[in-house]
């Protein structure tokens, strides 16, 4: 039994490498869709998360502590639970059912964006808060207005912000619950790396699953290394 399983894994691994290096169209299509969906979700979360983080990091107002606490708590939200909420939201009887977004890449993008927003907001807020408080005053003494000084602080935190964005992207591309619930893994339309890995493994198509898992790990690793390298060059 062990021997058979061992053989199966080696066999699967060999086939997986073959699929990757032969430029298999299905593998290619799933990869591209995964990257597109997750990078769009990351951009969306930065679009609405950055202003929130900037306010949390730069301004002092009543309720700030609670709001920060909320985003920190949401970091650990179970993806399936969020997927279920979003499923109900997008379903025909849900509040935006009339848009017919369920089981579409758009729903997956929105779902992932919502999922990673706590990461984007919390990490960027921390990045802004860790900037030396003298930077804002320094900018002012050099002639900056209040707004220009705040921009200087944001720029100073860019290194850590890019790491926060990378973490958000990695979380998005590696998550399964939300995309499965609102995307449904429709071949050629909504299937992405994680959903296909889960489905193909269940079907016993271990080779394709392994190939996609290797690619997923490669994407996550390469993105992190590239961002780190850019960071090091800048500093």
């Amino acid at each position, binding site marked *: 039994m062990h021997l058979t399983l061992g053989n199966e894994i080696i066999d699967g691994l060999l086939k997986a490498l073959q699929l990757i290096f032969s430029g298999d169209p299905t593998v290619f299509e799933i990869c591209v869709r995964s990257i597109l969906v997750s990078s769009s979700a990351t951009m969306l979360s930065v679009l609405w998360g950055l202003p929130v983080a900037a306010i949390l990091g730069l301004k002092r107002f009543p309720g700030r502590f609670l709001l920060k606490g909320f985003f920190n708590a949401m970091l650990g939200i179970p993806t399936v639970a969020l997927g279920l909420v979003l499923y109900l939201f997008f379903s025909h009887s849900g509040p935006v059912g009339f848009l017919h977004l369920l089981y579409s890449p758009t729903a997956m993008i929105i779902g992932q964006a919502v999922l990673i927003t706590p990461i984007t907001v919390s990490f960027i807020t921390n990045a802004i808060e860790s900037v030396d408080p003298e930077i804002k005053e320094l900018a002012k*003494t050099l002639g900056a207005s209040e707004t220009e000084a705040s921009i200087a602080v944001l*720029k100073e935190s860019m290194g850590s912000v890019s790491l926060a964005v990378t973490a958000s992207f990695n979380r998005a591309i590696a998550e399964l619950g939300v995309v499965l619930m609102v995307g449904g893994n429709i071949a050629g339309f909504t299937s992405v790396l994680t959903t296909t890995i889960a489905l193909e493994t269940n079907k016993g198509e271990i080779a394709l699953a392994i190939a996609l898992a290797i690619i997923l790990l490669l994407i996550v690793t390469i993105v992190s290394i590239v961002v780190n390298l850019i960071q090091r060059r800048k500093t």
Partner: protein
Amino acid sequence: MKPIMELENVSKAYGNIIALNQVNLKVQEGEIFSFLGPNGSGKTTLLRIMAGIEKPTSGEVRFNGAKVDESNINDVRLKTTMVFQKTALFSTSVFKNIAYGLRLRGYSKKETADKIREVLRTVKLEGYEKRPAKKLSGGEQQRVALARALALDTEVLLLDEPTANIDPKNVSIIENVLSWVNKEKKTTIVVATHNVFQAETLAKRAALLLEGKIVKVGATQEIFALPSKLLASYARLENVFSGASKVTGEGTSLVDVGDGVQIEVAFEQSGNTTVFVPPEDIILSANPIVSSARNSFEGRIVEISDLGTIVRLRVNAGKDFTVQITKRSCNDMQLNIDSKIFLAFKASSVQTV
């Protein structure tokens, strides 16, 4: 000369703590003015208010005769600039650090590059444009901060302890640049310092600040003409000692400052004398020092303050001495609190206050 900056009944409180109490002051256009006072006397707060990055709790600040308020604060910030005691730099190149303020003032690319070259030459950092600013030594970083301020050609330059934590070579470069800028560019300079000798070298006028109040404003010599003990206690200088002095007959005098400590000085004076030993002139050693220095003491370290590249030590040798050494030497000598240490300084290093 007309006043460029006027403070009228300016007070500043942080909660219950009063940092400034009814300060009235006029800084004249084109002068070098110095705030003298111990740590915590309100020098920094005063500079921050003048720089427009802090609002007074009450009172009025006028710039070129106009009251500073929300409507013109941005204009005032464009005409004044401040160099902080703790060097603040953007995490980028020297070039971009200096370019920041120029960009806000609408300089073209060529004007910016030319200006940066010029100011780096002034602070003796030619060719440093591409270097990451934060990787420079403490003294070089402070010179970049000064160059960045100079590039803006502001009417007023405010400096908070610009030479507090750097080595003597960098101190002299900075002091020379400040004198030059004031003379050549007619920039009004306000410098806060706890170093009375720096105040004397640089400024024609000074204000003595104590616990948020201006105790005296006047020509620097007038401040120095205050009874020496009063000045020393006001300024709460480090390494200031008072006692009865006796002429030795060898061209020196011996000042008995109490607690078994006698300091030999290179002048002949008898009677009550107050002396100052510059921290940077004191030599430290883990072993007894054999040298021509006339003053040699054994003590124990009671305090270590890490100031970046420089480490400041307080050594109790009967009296407390403050000594300044490089961090490298401190690490090499493996100094810790309560370490036994020997210190020595020349009689000629000792100055009268």
